[in-house]
Structures are given as C-alpha cells and as structure tokens.
C-alpha cells in the first residue's frame, strides 16, 4: 500500500467519520479498486469501524474490492440504451472476451461491467472503454472496438 497516496486523499476531506464515502471514492478512482489494507488504513484514520467500511464498500456500486483490467469496459444499461439493444451489446462483449459481466480477463487487460445510465441517451447504445466513449455502437462492431485496445 502506498500510504502517502492515501494520506493525500484523506487530507482533502474533513478528518471525520462522515467523510468516509468521499475518501473511498477518491481511492477507487486512484487505484480502480479498494485493497483490503487500504480499507483498514482508512478506517483507522477516520475512526470508522472496519465493519462499517466494509459495509459501505459492498453497499455502493462505485466501489470494487477486486482489481479491474487495464481497460475497464462499461456497457450502459440505462433505459434508452436498453431499448436500443444494450443487452445484445453486453452479450457480444461477453462472447468476444470470454468473461461475464463483472469479471476481468485472465491477462488483466479487460474488465467488463454493466453500468447505470451514463446520461448520453441521445447516443444510445453507449459503451465506455476507459475514458473513451463509443456511442451508437451496433453489436457487430464490438470486435473492431476491442482490437483498438489490444
């Protein structure tokens, strides 16, 4: 664990138990997951029981206890994307990558997850790979998209 990274994050917030969610969010966006030792460290620093921290880390969808792949793929499953075929798109990703929703490929290159509405409903169906957004994506183009990142 890189304590100085975590300390920097904690410093940005009032050092009180109610800041715990905000701190965990920053850790998540820095490390892409919440390692066990970090959970313990943050709990101790903010004086939150570890049971509560674990509760939060599993309650909220923004948090992940497992590391993600180098290119995290998020398939939007908001309503607009759904009516435009997000389920087919998800299946195609699962097929191409050989993993299921929520998993990471063995080579740690890709992880796949379905996400709640990203709010770009005009571009449905929408997929993000890392920070790149691909809109109006037909499932037949999934292979092509993945090639860009291989």
């Amino acid at each position, binding site marked *: 664990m890189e304590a100085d990274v975590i300390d920097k994050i904690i410093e940005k917030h009032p050092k009180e*138990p*109610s*800041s*715990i*969610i*905000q701190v*965990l*969010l920053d850790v998540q966006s820095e490390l892409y997951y919440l390692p066990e030792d970090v959970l313990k460290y943050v709990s101790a620093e903010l004086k*939150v029981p570890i049971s*509560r921290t674990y*509760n*939060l880390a599993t*309650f*909220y*969808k*923004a*948090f992940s206890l497992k590391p993600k792949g180098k290119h995290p793929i998020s398939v939007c*499953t*908001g*309503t*607009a994307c*759904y*009516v*435009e075929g997000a389920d*087919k798109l998800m*299946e*195609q990703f699962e*097929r*191409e990558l050989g993993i299921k929703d929520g998993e990471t490929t063995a080579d740690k290159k890709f992880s796949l997850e379905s*996400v*709640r*509405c*990203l*709010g*770009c*409903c*005009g571009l*449905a169906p929408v997929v993000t790979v890392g920070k790149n957004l691909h809109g109006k994506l*037909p*499932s*037949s183009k999934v292979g092509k998209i993945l090639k860009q990142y291989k």
Partner: protein
Amino acid sequence: MAYRTYLMVCAGTGCVANNSMKIKEKLEDELLKRGIHNEVSVVTTGCNGFCAAGPLMVVQPDGVFYQLLKESDIPLLVEEHFIKGRPVKKLMYTPPKEKSSIPKMSDIPFFANQTLIALKNRGLIDPEKIDEYIARGGYEALAKVLTTMTSEEVIKEIKDSGLRGRGGGGFPTGIKWETCKRMEADTRYVICNADEGDPGAFMDRSIIESDPHAVLEGMCIGAFAIGASDGYIYIRNEYPIALQRLQVAIKQAREYGLLGKNIFGTDFSFDVRIVRGAGAFVCGESTALMASIEGKPGEPRAKYVHTVEKGLHDKPTCLNNVETWANVAQIITRGASWFSSIGTGDVSEDAWGGSKGTKVFSLSGKVNNTGLIEVPMGISLRQIIYDIGGGIKDGKKFKAVQTGGPSGGFIPESLLDLPVDYEELTRVGSMMGSGGMVVTDEDNCMVEMAKYFLSFTQAESCGKCIPCREGTKRMLDILEKITTGEGTEEDLVLLEELSYMVVDSSLCALGGSAPNPVLTTLKYFRDEYETHVRDKKCPAHCCKALIKYSIDPNICVEKGHGCGVCSKSCPDGAIIGESKQVHYIDLMKCGKCGICYDSCKFNAIYIE
C-alpha cells in the same frame, strides 16, 4: 379602443436583460409627450428569438422590425416614424437574402414547442463564467430577497407560484419550506438532490452543466427562507463534468461573496458543500440520501417523522431536487402569478390543485429528435413525441411511452392525448417522476421492458425491508419464466397480486413504485403477456427463448447471391453455406445474437 399602430416590444429574457423595459417606458413617455398615446399602443411580447438584436420591436401593421434600440433613439424614432410617417432606416433590420432559406429557431418544432424557465440560459452562457450568469439577470433575485423581502414573503411567493417538487413526488415546495421553517431548531439544512438515478433521465445533469449558478442562487434563496446557513449538493459520481462545473461555480460565487458570510453585506450567511454519491439508486430517496451524506449506507428509514422535522444530523432539512431549485430565482424575479399562469389547474386554494410552470424531460428511445426539452405543464404526450420529438424513428409504429423512470409506468397510444400533469400521469398508473421519457416502438416487447425495469429496481433495492427485497425478486422470477416460455396464466394472476403487495407494504417509495412498470404493462398490454404464456411467442420478437432466426433461401440467392456476410459475421459459426449458394442457420449452434439479422443487406434473415 382601437389604435392605428401597435409597437410590439420584445420582453423575452434576452431583451429584458438588454433593457427593453426601459425602451418601453421611454416609448410610452414619448408618445404621451407628443400626444399620440391614444393612437399608438405599446405592447410587450414573448421572445422573438433574435435575442442578439435586442432590444427589438416590431411595428404592426407595417411589419417594420427595429433592432438594437437605445433609449436615446426613441425621440427620433417617434418623431420620424409615428408622426412624420418615415420609418427610420438606420434602426431597421432587413433580412439579408441568403439567409431567408434557413428557418428561424421558432420555426423548428423541436424548439418552438418548448418554454424555457429552468433551462433559460442553456446554450447561451458559458457555465464557468459567473459574469455571464449575472449578465442574464443572475443573482438579482437573491439581491431582491435579501434586501426587500422577509422569509415569510419568500415562502408565500413560492407557495403562490404553485411550484411542486420536480424530483418525482410533486410535493408543493412552498409548504415544504414553511413546515421546515416552523420547526424549532438551532440549525437547519438545505440540500440539493442531484443524485439523478433514473435510467433515461439526464435533466439535472444538463441543468448543472449549462447553468450551475441558477441552482446555487435557488438554494441561497431557500436557505434564507427557512433560516439555514449550510447547504449540501449530493451529486452522482458518474457526472464528472457537472461536478466540475459546480465546483467552479461555487468557487466563483464565494469569490464574489455570493456564498459565505454576510452575503451582499446583510446578516445572511450561507455556504454549500458538495457530496458525491457512490452509485446507489436508493440514495435518491431523501432519508437514504441524508444517511449517505452522514457517511452511512444509503438505507431509507420509515418517515413517521419527516425530514423537514428531523433530517440530516437530525435537524430540520429542506431537500429539493436540481430542477426545483433552478426555478426558484425566476419565480422571485418574475413573480408567482407569472409562474402560475403557466400550467394546469388552480393552486390558489389547494396546493395540490394543479401543476404549474414547466417540466424538463429527457426524451429518448425510438424518437427522431432525442434530447432535453422543457415544456409547459399540460402539454400532451402526443405533442411531445410527435411535434417536438419528430415522431418515431424509421417510420415504425409507436407502442408506448415510459415516463417516470423505473418507478413509472408505460402509457399506450390510446392515452397519448393525456396532458402532462402530476395527477393525470398518476391516474393512469405512471408518474411524473424526475422526467425521463423513453419512447418504445413495435420492436420492443412490453414483458421484456417490464422485466428490465424490475431487474433494475430489484438490484437497487437496499434490502432493508422484506416486501421490496423479496417481493421484487419473486416478481422478477415470474417475469423470467414468462419471457423464457415457461409462464402460465396463473403466473399472471400471481404477478399482479405480488405487485400490489409490494406497493402496499414497502418501506420507501422505491419499493412502493417498483411494480408500476409491471402493473401498467399488465393493464395496457395484457395481450402481449397472454401471447407469451399461451402461444409461447413474443409478438415483438424480443424474448430470445421464444424466437428463432431463419434465412429466406429465395431472397438469399436471388437478391444477395449468397454473399456470405452473415456467415462471416456470425460469432457462433452457426451459418453454413458455400459462396454464391443458399445459406442456412444451424439452430443448434445459433446463439440468437441477431448480428446476422443486422448485417444482411438484403433482409433475407427473418425472425419467427
């Protein structure tokens, strides 16, 4: 009494900001001075759309269009045009020739049918420049409130306006403020709910992205009215741009002293903190949201005691959503009677007696013009979908419009003339909700759609109360059975029964409204359910277990000459056939992904 000439002075926001009201006064003065005030009448009009040319005026019946007027132009104008009858060329606007073929914004139905209040600055100002917000009349409502009004007067103005919560519930905002104010307490809070969780809804995000100060100003006014000095904005973490613009706005407002201690040199102090949500739909519920701000899991509590009495940190708390806050400053500036003149019903006696003002909807799904729209309450769904939305994509047939997010319901074609109004939408089994509006067409299966929404709410159920946690799960199991062809007619009865049980006994609104998509589809599209359970068929060709893909051999050979695109694109290798020969689908291998169907240029592949 008839006048020979009418002067139509534009009183749209842009022109008013450019002093058009001064121009109007000056015109009236000048006409009076010249003794022709009985012949020439000055009238104010709505926005012409040519805001950049404002202040502007159209002379009727001559049709002369004056632009960029200054007060000092008026004496000359009155003298020349209305006394001597010589229109003043240098103040006139003549449309250049080449532009005549391009429509005006007001000629385009998408824009023409909208009324902008919460979105009045969208696309016009740079959201990261507070000066541009001020230039469009920003923070004047706050100045008015702090220097000329008491908190009671502010509350009365909001009550009289008929403003109701735009986040879903439709609770009258003024009454909420009044109740919160009445509680004995040393500390009170205001909260802006920007945890826009409904799939297919993005109006709050858009308001914050295009006009963050409107939300801050509304919160300041609300805080003054209820006597709060601390505010929170709870925003979804999935909205990075909105979050960043909000941070910039707060910083700028603090620099100008519009947030902080002694705002405008008065005794009133107020500041705002941003709290990010961590991806739990249930946190849109007020008690869950407050728990989340306190750093706890977002689980709702029973509301025997309302949050206006005991909310955040057990203090009286006034929570409104983004759109509600964005309306506040406008109501103060333009008056309650202006606001209540828009919309349906009458709120003078009963705060629930009508729906006033406008509502922002995010229009998506199978319509031609997807986007964010703001329409007056009372507009019909048909106008929204066909006039603004431009009708259904690819000439398909409309099936249903889903309003109110996962807690709302599906509204069929027969009810499209329904006016958009809190009570009307609830009456037909849906709700206003936060304003998601997803249009479905003949290719969408209603059972599948109901399953989609239910799987959403089921996954988002916090698990605290049994009816919601277990009830939605069992309902989902039944829907799963039906969509895979295992359903029976008894299942439909059980599904309905379970729905009412979940509605009646859940702890919070999430469970209380989760069955709405199921109930409305059962009500309006029961035949689709019946086809699934009786004939084991999906009329919309959506439910995978109930369909199969086939290739029409004639079309394949005659039109496509056995091009083989389908077999190359098939991820399962399920399509067999030599080049230039008929192709077949091996149903044992077919994964029913539909890629072949999409990739065949000759429409040789069909679903049955």
